[in-house]
């Protein structure tokens, strides 16, 4: 019997965490939370999530990028490097040009997908489902 997929939401905004929970629960996912990179690390090891929603604008723009890069490339996170990561961002798409992944300039590995805030529930669930199907 398959257990429900577990989603880890990493965001320092308590309102986002509160708003996104019913969305995820409506698709019968288990939800775990973290509000900073340190807590995120603890939760990743403890809960072994099937997918991660990561807000990139935590204390500094780079918190999200560095964490993503670490999960995908560092030895510490090697058991979790295949966990799909979706960046959630309050930075709006600028007409004609996609949000520039600043991390590219620094040689960082990016996420599997991006989604802008506020997230549309159906859009978010569709993207998550796409990754969990694999």
């Amino acid at each position: 019997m398959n257990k429900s997929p577990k989603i880890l939401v990493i965001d320092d905004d308590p309102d986002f965490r509160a708003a996104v929970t019913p969305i995820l629960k409506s698709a019968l996912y288990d939800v775990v939370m973290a509000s900073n990179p340190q807590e995120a690390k603890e939760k990743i090891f403890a809960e072994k999530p099937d997918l991660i929603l990561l807000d990139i604008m935590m204390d500094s723009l780079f918190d999200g990028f560095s964490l993503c890069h670490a999960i995908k490339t560092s030895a510490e996170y090697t058991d979790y490097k295949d966990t799909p990561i979706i960046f959630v961002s309050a930075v709006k798409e600028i007409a004609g040009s996609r949000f520039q992944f600043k991390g590219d300039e620094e040689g960082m590995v990016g996420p599997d997908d991006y989604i802008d805030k506020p997230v549309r529930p159906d859009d978010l669930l569709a993207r998550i489902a796409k990754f969990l199907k694999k």
Partner: protein
Amino acid sequence: MAETPIILVIDDEEAMRDSCSLILVKEGFRAETAENGRVGLEKARELKPALALIDLKMPGLSGFEVLEKIKDIDSRIIPIVITGYATVESAVEAMKKGAYDFLPKPFTPDELRIIIRRALERRKLAMEAETLRREKKMMEENFITMVSHQLRSPLVAVQQYFEVILAGMVGSVEDAQKDMILRARERLESLLHLINDWLDMARISRGQIVDKLKPLALEKLLDKQVEFMKPLAQEFKVKLELRPMKKTAVVLGDEQSLEQVFSNLISNAIKYNKPEGSVIITLREEDGILVADVADTGIGISREHLPLVFDQFYRVSRREDQKIKGTGLGLAIAKKIVEAHNGSIQVASEPGQGSTFSVRLPKAEPEEK
């Protein structure tokens, strides 16, 4: 970075090189020498000294030539000219060519020490000024990013709650509630839009754009914008067309902000148009200036309003336009961006028939370096 400063002595006289080195080493500097201009420039390239003492009269490359070339190698190297043929003319010539100071031979060790100390002090100040300038710029950019984040964050949080409520995920929503929430969401969106526009205005200062200029193929940029705008054109039932230009049109520009300019002009042309109308974009060259025209068959702008359209917040307030959302800053921002590119933007219009917005940008010089 407390490294020992390197001082390079370029002089064909061995005695001069040796005695200068002695004095410099005694002062705690690292002395390097070169017996002629060619070797001097090679060593400058390799060692990037803080100062260079340059003799004027040398066989081969003259001191003046070395002076000019050393600035190209590293503009931070402070050149000091030394010479046994000290004349007012040669001193003036040396200063014009960028020498920091002029020391006639023979000179005493004290005279050398004083000039060196002064030159190093000057170099230190110049480097500090550069660092401060860069820090200030970073702080300004960070400030704008911070303000942006702080203003947007709460609004985005509210919007997020609306999305979840409207999707029925925290209980069923009755029609009357839904209508109010939808209306509230609209007001939030326009507030967010306004904030974005004001932040754009704050961010677009000439200095910031000048730093990001690179050669751009304008016809490719326009092509990309037209593709992006096709769905909007379809929604408004307006034909959107880019007339091709025969050759490539390269400008020195910041891609992102120029995209913003044309995105604004094209979406205006679509929205302020008549059903079954058209938006035609052309690109031509006029005396080394590239002109991009965005022509629409819309409602046009009356003569009294024409000079005001680029003003901040100016929006034509006719009954039919009330439906078209916007902050009134789009054209003011476009004008600021274009002018920061050393260009200009104009509009010509015939009420009832349409308007043509023209963006003029100087052509990029072909690469010479």
